[in-house]
């Protein structure tokens, strides 16, 4: 099992570096082995940027990102790809890749330069596509799928990568309620260390072991959903009023937004 540790991270795009304007600053974040951690915060607060630091895309200006004590930036890209898989909202260009092609890409970090997909690879790809409910469309053109189906294909690609840490940027945002619950339930059952950003706080409350709240590039709170999701804090960070009570069946916090009449 793998743990992710981010220590005193600072990051900003090259263009803003000279002005010393940091988009992320003083970030301390930990995902313990097998833990499901959520990241919440307003638009533009830095969630996506922070996740990019965690999958070795944004190089930190200060601080450290490490996996089980190994600094990611001391390792090769392939090393981290063998351990970290990512589900993004970046879809392949409509150049004519099939669903199976897209999922097969997930095997890349485990294969040699000229090696094709072997029998084990093919089986894994097939099983995973079945698991996300897309077994019967594996020869379809990826570009013709619906947004939610694409999202599930990308999840399948991340899963065939056989990672120890999963990073997800708003994984549920194209999905209907059934697949939202199914996908998150599936991820929980995998038991992988997971870091995911959410906009739907009720989903975050239902599925995450712990939450971090990011606002304006700094982490402002962390803890269990019950500790973090208070009406006061939601007002502070998101600027909206909410009623927070307990979910009548499951016991985690339930958020009801209070709209102006």
């Amino acid at each position: 099992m793998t743990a992710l540790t981010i220590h005193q991270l600072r990051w900003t795009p090259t263009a803003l570096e000279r002005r010393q304007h940091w988009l992320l600053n003083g970030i301390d974040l930990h995902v313990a082995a097998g833990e499901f951690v959520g990241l919440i915060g307003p638009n533009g607060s830095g969630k996506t940027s922070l996740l990019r630091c965690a999958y070795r895309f944004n190089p930190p200006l200060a601080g450290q990102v490490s996996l089980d004590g190994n600094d990611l930036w001391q390792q090769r890209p392939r090393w981290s790809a063998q351990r970290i898989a990512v589900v993004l909202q970046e879809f392949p260009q409509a150049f004519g890749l099939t669903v199976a092609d897209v999922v097969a890409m997930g095997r890349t970090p485990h294969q040699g330069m000229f090696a094709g997909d072997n029998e084990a690879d093919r089986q894994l790809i097939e099983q995973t596509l079945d698991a996300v409910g897309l077994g019967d469309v594996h020869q379809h053109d990826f570009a013709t799928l619906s947004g939610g189906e694409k999202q599930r294909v990308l999840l399948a690609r991340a899963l065939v990568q056989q990672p120890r840490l999963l990073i997800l940027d708003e994984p549920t945002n194209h999905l209907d309620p059934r697949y939202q619950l199914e996908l998150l339930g599936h991820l929980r059952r995998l038991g992988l260390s997971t870091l995911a950003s959410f906009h739907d706080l009720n989903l975050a409350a239902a599925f995450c072991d712990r939450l971090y709240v990011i606002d304006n590039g700094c982490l402002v709170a962390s803890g269990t959903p019950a500790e973090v999701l208070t009406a006061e804090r939601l007002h502070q960070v998101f600027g909206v009023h909410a009623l927070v009570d307990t979910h009548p069946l499951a016991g985690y916090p339930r958020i009801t937004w209070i709209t102006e009449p």
Partner: protein
Amino acid sequence: MPIRSVAAYRLLVLGLLGVLLVSCMTALAFGPASVPVSNVWGIVGEQLGLRSGGDWTQGQSRIVWLIRAPRVLLGALVGAGLALVGTALQAVTRNPLADPHLLGVSSGAALGAVLVVLFLGDFAGVFSLPLAAFIGALGSMTLVLAVANQQGRLSSERLLLAGVAVSFVLMALVNLLLYTGDQHASNSVMFWMLGGLGLARWEILWLPALCLLLGLLALLALARGLNALMSGEHTAVSLGFNVQAVRVQVFVCTALLTGVLVALSGAIGFVGLMLPHLARRLVGAEHRRLLPVSALLGGLFLVWVDVAARTLIAPQDLPIGIATAAIGGVFFIALLRRR
């Protein structure tokens, strides 16, 4: 619907190889001097030591074996190479309109050739023009990469813009030199601007053949990287690719290959732009499958376009660049309308 199964794919590749072989043989029969197809096969058989003698003249044998054969083969090699380069560049730049001349290679080649014709003369015998064109191609490609480079990062957008800008400046120089220079210069430089296979000799064929083989192997090794980059930078990084390194490798590989091809055959347009699209329709966009098919189609295409170039206004040779542009354009329009 593209071909998906492994068996069908193998069949397709073998079929294309066969068609290419037969096309090359058949193409030998076309040209100003008429040689019947049966004699062509006989002459080739004789040269390969498979049979001896037949009812053809020494002259026919020379025309077929020494003039037409290298030309047909050069056409196949150049077509395959350009299609290969176009396929790879369209993927790394995520731009379906990218083509081999994107990196400014062709204008550099023309400038190299014109400078030699005007100021240096034959410094290396028959090879002085191709050599000058190759040096010019390398120069312009270096210039494009240098202009596009931003603190060690190469973005596709900057590369496309740099390529266009450098091409315009170099072509302006070429045109200026031609405009103020003499007639002789413009005739020999026109070759690089319009393209042609007239430089083909048996002695030089090994060079494009070797480069094509190395280019194909290198790009096949980079094929997964091409798939990943086509999906975007973040995907490529998350799959373990060093995006900058893959880009630079692809650019250098394709630029070198294009440089060699352009030095020998001038700026033949359209093959590198169009054939990759055709190949994608046949086998989809997975590059390990796509690259070989793209190359085969490119070779096949240029062999037949060259036949057209040799016969349309016989006994004169139509510059092949004009033929590819005309035939390719019409073909593309037909394809678009049919969809």
